[in-house]
């Protein structure tokens, strides 16, 4: 089992004829994802990796049953692409595009709510239910089936953690990248909630970073409502205060969203926090052994 997507999920690629879109459509196919169609206005009728390309999402949906979409179009057109997907009734939309204006992101989220759609990202590597379906840009070889759920804000850092897990013999159930922007569709709490319901996810690794208060909210949720054990890693311990470290969300302001506040909230919720990425498997081992011992 897995959350959000599984082996039956049929996927559309918006922006499939672009450099990133075509490359990753191929990678997703190679992973085993059912990429059934692509969209690129003006390129309708072409094929990319043998995937049929349509001019509009509407046209693609008329020919295929599509459950999820992944968006690669440039920032200036990403909002429109997302709305297009919502209007055609697609209920899961992963927005890979980065540098989307924050006002556009707010509109995307407001529209998603009206249409009952789930947005992963923007500025995310996507999500993958290991061995079943990858909707994203993560390297294929690290995502092997297993019982550990992973949810992270940052992309490469998740790969790092997932790589360490794999090294230690842990496969993953589903790995979700929330996205690095200030406004993203899913929160840690949203994803933890799903994992909690997923019988086959035995433990969860949460990869947070400084800025915002999503980790603190997650800590509260874990404390009040979760049974599945959670282990965390937090990036940004060494970041000097007030310096912006690339993500809009990673601004340390007014003493909120600091490493210390996140670490203490999580520890307070019984979540072990790793000092370094490669320590995560060890903490996981400890917490799972403890559980099994009970």
């Amino acid at each position, binding site marked *: 089992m897995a959350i959000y997507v599984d082996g039956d999920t049929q996927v559309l690629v918006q922006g499939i004829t672009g450099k990133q879109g075509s490359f990753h459509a191929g990678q997703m196919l190679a992973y085993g994802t059912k990429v059934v169609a692509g969209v690129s206005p003006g390129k309708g009728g072409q094929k990319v990796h043998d995937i049929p390309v349509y001019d509009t999402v509407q046209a693609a949906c008329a020919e295929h049953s599509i459950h999820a979409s992944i968006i690669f179009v440039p920032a200036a057109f990403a909002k429109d692409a997302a709305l297009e997907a919502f209007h055609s009734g697609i209920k899961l939309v992963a927005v890979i595009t*980065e*540098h989307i204006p*924050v006002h556009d992101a707010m509109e995307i989220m407001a*529209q998603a709510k009206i249409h009952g759609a789930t947005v992963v990202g923007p500025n995310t590597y996507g999500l993958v239910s290991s061995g079943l379906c990858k909707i994203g840009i993560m390297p294929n070889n690290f995502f092997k089936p297993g019982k550990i759920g992973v949810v*992270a804000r940052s992309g490469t850092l998740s*790969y790092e953690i997932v790589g360490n897990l794999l090294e230690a013999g842990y496969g993953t159930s589903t790995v979700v990248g929330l996205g690095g922007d200030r406004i993203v569709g899913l929160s840690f709490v949203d994803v933890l909630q799903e994992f909690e319901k997923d019988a086959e996810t035995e433990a969860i690794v949460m990869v947070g970073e400084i800025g915002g208060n999503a980790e603190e909210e997650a800590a509260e949720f874990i404390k009040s409502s979760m049974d599945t054990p959670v282990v965390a890693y937090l*990036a940004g311990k060494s970041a000097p205060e007030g310096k912006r470290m690339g993500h809009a969300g990673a601004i340390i302001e007014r003493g909120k969203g600091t490493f210390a506040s996140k670490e203490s909230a999580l520890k307070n919720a019984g979540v072990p926090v790793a000092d370094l990425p490669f320590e995560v498997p060890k903490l996981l081992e400890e917490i799972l052994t403890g559980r099994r011992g009970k």
Partner: protein
Amino acid sequence: MKYFEYMGKSLFKEYGIPVPDGAVAETPDEAAEITKKLGSAVIKSQVLTGGRGKAGGVKFADSPEEAGKAAEELLGQEIKGYKVERVLVEEKLNIEKELYLAITIDSTKKSPVLIASTKGGMDIEEVPEEYIVKKNIDVLTGMEPFVIREIVSELGFDFKAETSKQFMKIVSKLYQAFRALDAELMEINPLVIADGQVIAADAKVTIDDCARYRQKDLPYVEEKTVIEKKAAELGLAYVELEGDIAVMANGAGMSMATLDILQYYGGKPANFLDAGGGAGSETMARAIELLLEKKPRVIFINIFGGITRCDDVANAITQVLGQQKIEIPVVIRLVGTNEEEGRRILEAQSLSAYNLMHEAAQKAVELARK
């Protein structure tokens, strides 16, 4: 991108939000000249930081001479590390009341949020909760009149007061500006009532950098160092730090973790550089050249390829090393998308790459100590 107070006020004025009479001055003479028209004046240092009042950055003058003197004292001074290059010379207001009004982005609710208080003039975090009105705005419908009425009602204002009507107009126009200009923050603290008029006595405006492509009429404010600026031109996020290990990683989280791990092993990173987001090999080659400008002791490249491809990274490295002689060691960690090809490219130039991040980091720290 943060704006100076005088720029924020000029935007406010454009959108019909009343601001005090005044003008910006770069010399004491200019400040004196402006004061001639105003009679008496407030002279405010223009710096991109708060708390300037407490730091002595605001002075009062009752004559052009005094204004010139005040400007002379302020110009060139440093306030919290920011040099004062301009002062804003404004009419003195006969302040009856100070309010707080701001619109910003609420990440949790994923919508614009208006924050208002009858206790303006101080840090909004020090104002007791019961004096603060927070109102999330539906980004699709905007600042509908009924929302403004709810704000006025929650603040306990008298609907019939002339100042309430002015306040309502300002709220509407501030939101209009906030949306039209892709703002991340528009803050008026204090919003004052002076002689029956509601006036924006200060202005903090931050514009979304990602929206610059469609906000071409807005001024550009340089907040960055020379290297940061060069990085920005390459579309990369770069922050200067104090250490001696130059770092390039991909992804903000990964880049932060890279700094964390270097520090964990006792190393000192010279910078934060996120080469993520699918930058091609050409861009990455430029980025590596940037790292060299700060003359570090070691270069540490930590790449976990996702949208970034390892072959692009390898090509960038070999390209730079092929063009210029580099005296310092380069520690490379390279895994992920197109990893094999990347390693092949490096090996062809007798370079090798680590597999594990912490081993690579330890090596980099060790080399920096030599």
